[in-house]
Structures are given as structure tokens and as C-alpha cells.
């Protein structure tokens, strides 16, 4: 009796353990990895108002790309939106694919200095970037409070490159941006890297010494799909992608609704934000259109404008040693930037 009980319990445990794993949703359903930021608003509204046609969805909300990638490793979601750095790491480790761009994140990375910083003694030293203050000498040796392996970090690398410097010429202190803001207010560090809404809390006399916009480069939020979803339910992913851009275009001019929804999303996920701040955020980061995707993803695989934009940042990560040259080769050979869905949608129009 005892042996049978032990055997039954063991079988039950094994059954439970094997059942615990990836989401494995049906062919015409998708699990979406969403984020409580501008790019996630159309997904949130579509779920709330039942706007999706032809398939069912379930959304999982992730405050950061790190946790989103961890869930991807466990096959917990299939399509979604995320920042470019986590997408790159997801591509290397889990075969994640970029199938489109979402909002333009270039306006987000901002680098502030105090009014007495020697960086402000020079302006216009970087050709073509009049809004980048300082030169190689004034930036060299500076302590920069910046969360590493993020869009801010990538854009910082671009700023340093334009100044003729590399990461080894400065001291990058990895900090959470809200803690970095507190530390900078307390007199720590020479340069503060942050993004909205945290950037809305900077002191009035601090100066924007550099930014994503000032570099003239572009860094996107990306629309992604797991390798598994693309191989097992490609048509559903394509239908979702099409409707995501449709919803973006329908909603993009309704600033009131977008900002209210963003405020709700952020507060529900433990982020502190005001109505005024969400309005500023949605105004600064308009939703994408399909026409923009057509322009970015037109061309032979590996030779589109989207490839050029993304691979620039892949190269930065290779230079920094975050990923290896063989990881980059793997991204290229496995079609990290997959323009096939956008191409098919263009042909269907």
C-alpha cells in the first residue's frame, strides 16, 4: 500500500513538473510579451476592447526587457515589443527575431550635466551634432551614471564614438536610473544618463549635454517574435503584426486616450508617473505606421535600412565585448531581422 502511494505521488509529481513549462498556446492564439510604455499601449487597448480579429490573445506585462527575456527562455510568450538591447540578447540566446519596429526610442536617452561642468565650455566640437556639448578632453575621465546594456548605454557609446572616445576613456557606473537621479542630485557623478519620465525630474539648471536626438542616429523599440511562434503559427503572427500597426495608426492621434492608458498601465505596474508626464511621453514618442515599416524593411534580407540600424548597435555590443563576433555571425546567419512578414503584408496591400 505504502509502495503504491509512493509510486502514485512520484508519477503525479513528474506529471506536474512536465506540465510546468512553456505556454504552448493553440495555433490561432498568441501570448504577447507587452511593456507598460508607449509601444505597449495599442496592445493593451486591443486586449481591453477585444479588437483582435481571427485569433485570441493573452498578454503578459514586463517592466523590463531582462524579465521579459527570462520569460522568453521559458517559452512564456510568443510575440511582443521590447527595447533593442534585450532583443539583441534574446536573439543571441533564444533565437528571437525582429519582425518590425515600434516607437522611435531616439528621444529617450538623455545625458545631463550640472551647470558648472567643464563639458559645457565647448559646443559644436562634434561635426554635424551641434547639440552635443564638450569634446574629447572634457568628456574624458568623466564618471557617468548609466544603466549598462540598455538603450541609454548604446546611445552613450554613440556619443563617445562621435567625440572620438571609447568606453575605456570614461567611467560608467551601472545604476538604476531613478537611483542615479537621486545620486546625481546628491552630487555624485559627472554625467547622468536617464530617460522619461525620470528625465522630467531633473533639476532646472542641469543642462542636456547630449541625447539620442543630438547624435542624429536612430534607435528603435522593436516588435519581436519567438523562433517557435514563427515556425509553428506564422500566419497568426502575421495577422497580429498587421493588426498591431492598424491599431497604432487608428490610435496615434488620440493623445488623450493614449496618455490616459499609459498612465493606467504604468501605475498598475508599480511605476510612478503623472498625467502630465504621460502626455509629454506620448507626444514625444508617436506610434509607428505601416508605411514607415515598409520603408525600413524593404530590400533583400540583411540589406534593409532596418538591418543597417540594428547591426550598428550589434557592432557596438561586439566592441564592448557584451557579445562575441561569433554571436553576431549567428544573428546574421539565422536571420535576426526578419523582413518577410512585412514584405508579405506589403504585397497583400
Amino acid at each position, binding site marked *: 500500500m505504502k509502495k503504491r502511494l509512493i509510486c502514485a505521488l512520484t508519477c503525479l509529481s513528474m506529471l506536474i513538473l512536465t506540465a510546468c513549462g512553456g505556454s504552448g498556446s493553440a495555433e490561432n492564439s498568441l501570448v504577447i510579451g507587452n511593456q507598460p510604455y508607449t509601444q505597449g499601449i495599442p496592445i493593451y487597448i486591443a486586449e481591453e476592447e477585444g479588437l483582435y480579429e481571427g485569433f485570441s490573445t493573452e498578454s503578459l506585462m514586463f517592466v523590463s526587457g531582462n524579465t521579459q527575456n527570462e520569460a522568453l527562455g521559458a517559452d512564456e510568450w510568443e510575440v511582443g515589443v521590447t527595447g533593442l538591447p534585450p532583443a539583441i540578447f534574446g536573439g543571441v*540566446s533564444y533565437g528571437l527575431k525582429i519582425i518590425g519596429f515600434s516607437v522611435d526610442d531616439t528621444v529617450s536617452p538623455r545625458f545631463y550635466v550640472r551647470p558648472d561642468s567643464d563639458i559645457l565650455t565647448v559646443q559644436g566640437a562634434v561635426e554635424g551634432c551641434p547639440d552635443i556639448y564638450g569634446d574629447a578632453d572634457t568628456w574624458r575621465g568623466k564618471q557617468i551614471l548609466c544603466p549598462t546594456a540598455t538603450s541609454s548605454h548604446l546611445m552613450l557609446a554613440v556619443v563617445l564614438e562621435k567625440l572620438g572616445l571609447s568606453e575605456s576613456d570614461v567611467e560608467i557606473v551601472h545604476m538604476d536610473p531613478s537611483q542615479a537621479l537621486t545620486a546625481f542630485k546628491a552630487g555624485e557623478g559627472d554625467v547622468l544618463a536617464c530617460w522619461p519620465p525620470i528625465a522630467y525630474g531633473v533639476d532646472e539648471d542641469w543642462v542636456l549635454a547630449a541625447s539620442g536626438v543630438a547624435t542624429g542616429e536612430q534607435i528603435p523599440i522593436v516588435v519581436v517574435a519567438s523562433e517557435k511562434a514563427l515556425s509553428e503559427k506564422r500566419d497568426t503572427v502575421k495577422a497580429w503584426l498587421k493588426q498591431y500597426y492598424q491599431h497604432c495608426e487608428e490610435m496615434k492621434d488620440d493623445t488623450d486616450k493614449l496618455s490616459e492608458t499609459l498612465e493606467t498601465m504604468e501605475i498598475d505596474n508599480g511605476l510612478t508617473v503623472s498625467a502630465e508626464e504621460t502626455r509629454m511621453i506620448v507626444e514625444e514618442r508617436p506610434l509607428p505606421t505601416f508605411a514607415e515599416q515598409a520603408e525600413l524593411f524593404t530590400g533583400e534580407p540583411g540589406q534593409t535600412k532596418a538591418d543597417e540600424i540594428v547591426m550598428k548597435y550589434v557592432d557596438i555590443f561586439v566592441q564592448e565585448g557584451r557579445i562575441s563576433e561569433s554571436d553576431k555571425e549567428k544573428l546574421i546567419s539565422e536571420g535576426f531581422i526578419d523582413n518577410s512578414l512585412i514584405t508579405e503584408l506589403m504585397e497583400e496591400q
Partner: protein
Amino acid sequence: MKSGKKKLIRKILLGCVGVGIFLGVWQLLMSMGVISERTMSTPGQVLETFIYKLRSADPDGATLQEHFLSSFKLAMIGFITAMVIGIPMGLVMGYFKAARLLLNPMFEVIRPIPPIAWIPIVILFLGIGMPAKVFIVFVAAFVPCVINSYTGVKLTNPVYINVAKTMGAGHFRIFTKICIPSAIPMVFTGIRLSLGASWSTLVAAEMLASTNGLGYMIQMGRTIIRPDIIVVGMLVIGCTGALLSFVLGRIERHIAPWRK
């Protein structure tokens, strides 16, 4: 003597067998696909990464030695400071009522606050350098030192104290000659717990602001999805903690030889 040597060899062998079984099961679970290679590295990959990190700063910006030394310095300063302040404080609170009444209320308030909750305040008062991170480790390590030292004194056999009083010993003499020696086993237990807390708080302390350290290395491993780097960091923290615990055991045996 011979049987002592045999016992030592047996102890070491059993330890090695235990570790070997653990590694074997780990490798087996991964080979069978029970644990996915997407989410975890094999023991071989971890060893490869360990050796790689000894000579390369990629992908997290410093070699393993640099990370280790940074964390070791941080953990040890926090740990030693906690011992130097916490043990005397606990001993004094345990014997002198006035000290207990004075210090206990504040201690009871501070005790449940998790170290990570101190980060925003610490940034304002101590900045983002070593002192701030040492404080986070100190807070974690301080509590076990105080509690165990206090308890050690409280557990002193009252018969010894009464005999000393009968012999005409004053409070200070009773405290130093009877209570403190009596409390040594509990003090060492507190030190051991404090050592563990110092190392386990490293990751939280290095979240404050880092350019290197084992906690930073683990965080970077998480960000760039490198489970091998995470495991190397965890193993270095674990093995260092175990080694320090062993050293502590040796010191305790020397100071309190009567304790088995």
C-alpha cells in the same frame, strides 16, 4: 593518529563524492533535456567560463579576479565592522539592563528593515562609493552579531554568576570573566551567520552602483542572458563563503577548545 588520518581522508573523500554526485546529476539532467540548455549551462560550460573569466574582462567589463577582489574587500570591511560594533553591543546589552533599555528599541526597529531598503537613504548620505556599499553589507551582518552575542550572555548559567557574587566579584568582573567566555560559542554562531549574510547581501549592495564585483557580474550575466556567468559568480560566492566558514571554525576551535 592513524585512525585520525583515516577519518580525515574519509571526510575529504565523502565530500568529493557528494560534489561529484551533484555535478553528475546536473550534467545528466541537462543531457536528458530535463533542464533546457536555453536556461542553464552545463558543468563543463561553467568550468570553461570560469577559466575564460580568469584572463578576460568580456563580457562584463572585468576579470574574475578583479570582480572577486572588489567584492571580497566590500564584504570583509562590512563584516568586520559589523563584528567590531555588533558583538560588544550585544554582549553589553545582554548583561547591563540600562544598555538594553537604551539600545533595544532602536535595534528592534532597524532589525526587520531589509538591507536593500536602505539604498535610497544611503545614496543621499554616503554617496555611491565603497562606504555606501559597505553600509548595506554592514546592516545585514550587524544583526546576527548583536542577537547572538546578546543571547549568549543571557544563556550564562546563573549558578556561575551567583557563585561569583558570593565570592565578592563586581559586575564588570562577572561580565568579563564569566559572561563573555560563556557567550563565546553563541558569539561564533553569530559570526558565522553574519559572514553568510555579508556574502549574500553582496548582490544587493552592488546594485547600488557598480563597475565591478561578483554581484555586478551576476547582474550583467542576467542582462546579457549568460547563465554560465551567473553560475560562476554564484559558485565563487558560495565557495568563498564556505572557505571563510572553515577558517572561522579553526579560529573558534583555538579560542574555545572546550566547544565540540
